[in-house]
């Protein structure tokens, strides 16, 4: 079956070419970040470097504002996860378990919010936060990031509860458990991986967000805001290391939640 062999070869060849396209920027940023200080302006650069060093990374981490900015990013992302799950998980449970008036309307709101350019709203929000004394505060950044993450949390967690059979909860209630006990002891445990995936998704949204974070902060900058603010002044080698540090956690996380990506982005 020659045609079959040809078919196979074509499929694998195209799959590999597309994989190279998807992966090559990660490789380039990694070898850039690992280039020893004396070699950063070498040209032409080797695609397979013979010497690597963490010197340039060290320099980046030592430059002023970077470590505090990373900590700020971490705080904002964790706040986003906590507020996002606290608001989104109950809403997701309601959507998955109940039929009620306005259910479809709320689903539509979730889908529209998912597409809505919330980051742009940072401009009017900045004026509001100034009046409230919340400007340049990590909480205000986390609130905007939560608004961005909320629809994704609701979709991921909702997908999980829809997939879990409702009968078990009802059986527990029939056997005398309260509604709350049935939820905590029966419905919640198998949903934990989905909740974790939603948490990671919210974390990545916040960790990556740059527009709102830049508009809403001056001194308490998150990592992307700090990097954006210093783009025009920082040397190329440090910009590349900055890219490396932004990408690293995000990629690890997305690999962890790969199973839930479709719930977040696919059609509903």
């Amino acid at each position, binding site marked *: 079956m020659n045609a079959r062999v040809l078919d196979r070869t074509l*499929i*694998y060849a195209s*799959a590999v070419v*597309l994989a190279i396209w*998807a992966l090559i*920027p*990660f490789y380039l940023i990694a070898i850039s970040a690992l280039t020893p200080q004396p070699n950063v*302006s070498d*040209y*032409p*650069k*080797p*695609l397979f470097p013979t010497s690597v060093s963490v010197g340039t990374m060290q320099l980046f981490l030592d430059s002023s504002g970077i470590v505090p900015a990373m900590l700020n990013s971490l705080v904002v992302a964790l706040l986003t996860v906590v507020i996002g799950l606290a*608001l989104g998980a*109950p*809403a997701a449970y309601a959507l998955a378990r109940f*039929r*009620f008036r306005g259910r*479809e309307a709320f*689903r*539509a709101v979730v889908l529209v*919010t998912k*597409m809505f*350019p*919330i*980051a*742009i*709203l940072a*401009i*009017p929000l*900045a*004026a*509001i936060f100034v009046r409230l004394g919340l400007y340049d505060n990590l909480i205000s950044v986390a609130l905007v990031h*939560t*608004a961005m993450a*909320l629809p994704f949390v*609701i979709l991921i967690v909702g997908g999980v509860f*829809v997939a879990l059979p409702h009968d078990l909860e*009802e059986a527990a209630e029939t056997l005398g458990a309260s509604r709350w006990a049935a939820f905590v002891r029966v419905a919640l445990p198998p949903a934990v991986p989905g909740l974790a995936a939603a948490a990671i998704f919210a974390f990545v949204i916040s960790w990556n967000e*740059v*527009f709102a974070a830049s508009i809403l902060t001056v001194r308490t900058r998150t990592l*992307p805001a700090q*990097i*954006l603010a210093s*783009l025009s002044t920082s040397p190329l080698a440090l*910009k*590349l290391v900055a*890219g490396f540090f*932004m*990408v690293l956690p*995000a*990629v690890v996380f*997305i690999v962890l939640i*790969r199973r839930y*990506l*479709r*719930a977040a982005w*696919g*059609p*509903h």
Partner: protein
Amino acid sequence: MRTRTGQLLPFTLLLPSIAFLVVLIVVPMAEALFLSVGTESDGFSLETFQRMLADVNFNDAWRNTFLVLLLIVPLQVALALAMALLVNSHFRGHRWFFLIYTVPLAVSDLAAGLLWLAAFTERGYLNSVLQSSGVIAQPMLWLSFDNFAGLVTAIVIAESWRTTAMVLLVLIAGLELIPRDFLETAELFGATRLRRTMHVVLPLLRPSLQSALIIRTIFAFQTFAVVFALAGRNLPVLAGEAYTSYATSQDEHLAAAYGVVILALSIVAIVVYLRLLGPREMEVQR
């Protein structure tokens, strides 16, 4: 489902989310409008919008935003479609390739710009490879302020690379909705893979393609950090002007006016999206 536990519980569970979204979305939208038509003396005036229209960067920003969008969309759809069809052919190891194709989804626009900066700078990897293989004799200035084509190409590549995975996820979900027997019937009647793709798969995939296109369009109006990373302010875009009006010129009225333009464009796209898909399509539960 059941109703005996009282009708109020679902609303109680939803209320915090609804209240939060109203405060974080509806209120600032109103504030954006007030800021853009308001003046320091609290009067109503279109002065800010006139100022925006007269701004030299506005026309460039408008043109560049749409140029980048028009270039990205076909490239991205072609790439995502190729990936989706490959993965959906369920060859051995397709799951690994699917994972690889989705990894760029985790990368922010700023980081995507910085990643591709490693390729496109004067002493970057693209020039290194081209020069080592003898294609060019000296480094090309891809990202120079006077190389408009170079700047646009770099931005289109970086942004397509980053967001192809979003389109891919929408298309994959659409492909999985196509009943297997359609394809098997076509195969039975002797249709080749190409003919099956052209005459069965693509027509059935149209709703997914439409929704992917519109989602992609909405995101294009917010394109900003990838442009700043690769081109600085040499290539103005709408969201970039909104940012600089606020952060550099400290003109919140002008920034809000740019914001209103971006919001209006996005809302138009969302309305088109809802119209095209219709409420029934949206309800399809997966």
